[in-house]
């Protein structure tokens, strides 16, 4: 009977040859190899959500296997179909264990090969097993590794300690420290949606801007395949954020590049983004389908059904257009040229601020933006025009991007203490904006209906009209929270921290 749960390890597959028959203290290692090997696929989300939490999920035939687990892997039969979203899995222990996966993210094959099970027993002179480990040896084309689940046996603590020490000598690491995906494919580079900028005391503003843009161009590229394959909607979302961040760098880092070049680049990135806007809106509508249905009484659901059907059709068309664009030679040429330009810094002349020290430049930008936000917020009360609230939202977003770009240059915990309340304020402003944008886009949708099919349009108009009214109400509710939200964000502590970090402690 095993004791409480123990960690799962990853070890080189040749460790088994080292262990075979080896004396370990007064014990001997005995290996029993499974007769067959089976195909396997390691599954994870694009951003390796499972791996980052020390979880390894493997599909073999119609079974899913998951580590870590107290005894062997957790298993669940899921049939022969390809595994995608966790919410589509049949109920069972694996689905429960995968509750950590964000519901918008689909599972993807990350590595493939053949898998063999090997049992290791440490036996004493009586041939009694004193500790056990179950190995799943994964062999892919480019690499191999074994997942090891040691098992302590009651009354034999010493043998277990020896087992763990021996595994350690073989280079075993826990699944939280090691990546199965990287072990099977040494060329694999994990996807990071928010890459950290490497800053040192000598980094110039020009270098910092160029590094950030390079990093986010790479992020954008890593999302193209997932958009084209329509794996999940987060690919497009991340792609857009990457482009938006690049555009923010170009507009926020004033004078880092020559004005003319900055202007042209800004336009270029805006154009790239423009092709994605409608698809993203439709993704959000379709994702939040239930939310919209819940907003209206059942008598108006028929119209919503029609609207969503039209949205789904429009999405298919939009996706086809975007996928064609992303696969076009013209796009390939454009994005390659952009990457080359920022890689080689050719035709990328520094502007008047380019040579400034990045850190002091960042502090100046952040302080300036923060002061601007305070000025706008001070003028806002319950009677102020919505325009001002929109402006506050945009400025908060810019501040957030600036702070995230330069986060590595500032003390981590203090920085976090600023970002957390800022995020909360942005949630409030974001909802206010979403409701507002949706009212406009729904109104535009109504306008586009035309005059044909009068009956259908009447039903649609009733539902969409009602939806606009409800969204308007929601927007008012969010609007009323803004003054309080800002006050919570801009506490005395926040004010002091901003002064300390970005303005040398002065007000």
């Amino acid at each position, binding site marked *: 009977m095993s004791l409480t749960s123990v960690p799962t390890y990853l070890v080189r597959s040749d460790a088994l040859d080292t262990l075979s028959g080896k004396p370990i203290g007064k014990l001997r290692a005995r290996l029993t190899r499974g007769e067959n090997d089976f195909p396997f696929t390691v599954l994870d989300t694009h951003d390796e959500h499972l791996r980052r939490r020390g979880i390894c999920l493997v599909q073999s035939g119609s079974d899913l296997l998951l580590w870590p687990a107290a005894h062997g892997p957790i298993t669940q039969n899921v049939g022969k179909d390809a595994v995608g979203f966790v919410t589509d899995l049949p109920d069972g222990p694996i689905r429960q264990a995968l509750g950590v996966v964000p519901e918008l993210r689909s599972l993807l094959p990350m590595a493939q090969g053949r898998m063999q099970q090997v049992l290791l027993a440490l036996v004493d002179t*009586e*041939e009694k097993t004193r500790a056990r480990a179950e190995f799943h040896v994964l062999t892919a084309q480019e690499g191999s590794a074994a997942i090891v689940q040691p098992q302590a046996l009651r009354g034999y603590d010493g043998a277990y300690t020896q087992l763990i020490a021996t595994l350690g000598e073989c280079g075993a690491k826990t699944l939280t420290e090691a990546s199965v995906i990287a072990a099977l494919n040494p060329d694999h580079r994990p996807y990071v949606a928010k890459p950290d900028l490497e800053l040192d005391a000598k980094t110039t503003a020009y270098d910092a801007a160029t590094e950030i843009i390079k990093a986010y161009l790479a992020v954008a590229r890593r999302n193209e395949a997932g958009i084209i394959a329509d794996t999940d909607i987060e690919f497009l979302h991340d792609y857009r954020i990457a482009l938006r961040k690049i555009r923010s760098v170009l507009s926020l880092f004033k004078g880092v590049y020559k004005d003319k070049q900055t202007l042209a680049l800004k336009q270029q990135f805006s154009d790239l983004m423009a092709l994605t806007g409608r698809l993203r809106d439709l993704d959000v509508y379709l994702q939040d389908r239930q939310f919209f249905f819940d907003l209206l009484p059942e008598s108006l659901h028929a119209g919503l059904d029609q609207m969503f059907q039209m949205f789904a059709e429009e999405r298919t068309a939009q996706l086809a257009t975007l996928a064609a664009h992303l696969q076009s030679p013209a796009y390939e040429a454009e994005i390659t040229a952009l990457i080359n330009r920022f890689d080689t810094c050719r035709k990328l002349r520094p502007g008047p601020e380019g040579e400034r020290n990045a850190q002091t430049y960042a502090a100046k930008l952040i302080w300036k933006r923060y002061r601007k936000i305070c000025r706008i917020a001070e003028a806002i009360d319950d009677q102020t025009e919505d325009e001002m609230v929109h402006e506050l939202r945009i400025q908060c977003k810019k501040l957030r991007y600036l702070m995230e770009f330069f986060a590595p240059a500032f003390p981590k915990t203090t920085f976090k203490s600023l970002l957390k309340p800022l995020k909360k304020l942005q949630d409030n402003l974001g909802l206010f904006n979403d409701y507002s944008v949706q009212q406009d886009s729904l109104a535009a949708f109504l306008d586009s209906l035309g005059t044909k099919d009068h009956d259908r349009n009447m039903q649609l108009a009733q539902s969409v009209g009602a939806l606009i009214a409800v969204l308007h109400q929601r927007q008012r509710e969010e609007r009323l929270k803004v003054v309080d939200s800002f006050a919570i964000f801009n506490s005395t502590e926040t004010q002091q921290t901003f002064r300390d970090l970005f303005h040398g402690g002065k007000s």
Partner: protein
Amino acid sequence: MKIIACYSNKGGVGKTATAVNLAYALAAKGQRTLLCDLDPQGASSFYFRVKPSKKLTETKFFEDVERFTKAIRASDYDGLDILPANMTFRDFDVFLSRMRNSRSRLKKALKAVKGDYDVILLDCPPNISTLSENVFSAADGIVVPVIPTTLSQRTYVQLEQFFQANKLPLKKLHAFFSMTQGVKSLHGQTMEEMRKQHKKRFLKTQIAFTSDIERMGVQRAPVMATAPRSQAAQTYGTLHDELMERL
């Protein structure tokens, strides 16, 4: 939690083989099982290759929760642990009552290491002693292997008499015929007689004398593990099912 004792007041009747295979069958059916080796002449621990702990002495053993839990050893089979004490226990009744009492320190200590058990199986020594008396009153059922010979018949009657004299409920006794040999007509006669005399006390299942069971001493493992398809293994499986139905 159930406490089942394997007992015979006569040696060499296949008691330990029964305890070992019953324990294996219980664990295989998902019951977390602790097999206590109480018979100094028995060999439950030997069959599971577990070395008796040298550190244990009889004195106040069962008052010492930590030492007790530390003495338990995992077998090579999932869900089956062994207490390889291999000695006589004066305070055994204290131990059993603590195993039952969910508030006792012993029970809590076991729970803390996820080592609580569904069944405790006792391989008892073959004499009627204070220990046996404790076991008889604490156990939910007492499994008694009986070789169908005249001598065994007499010792079984003695056991029933002991139960009556000590006001112990007879229905706790679950006897079965062990080491039966089809060729011996006397075996058949004795079984028929005893089934009549001790109605309801005998299980239907009987374990035949086979070389598979004898070989357990060489294999040092339950026959149900080494030869699961053998007749012996299958009959032990049936014995387990019938017994669990009665308990």
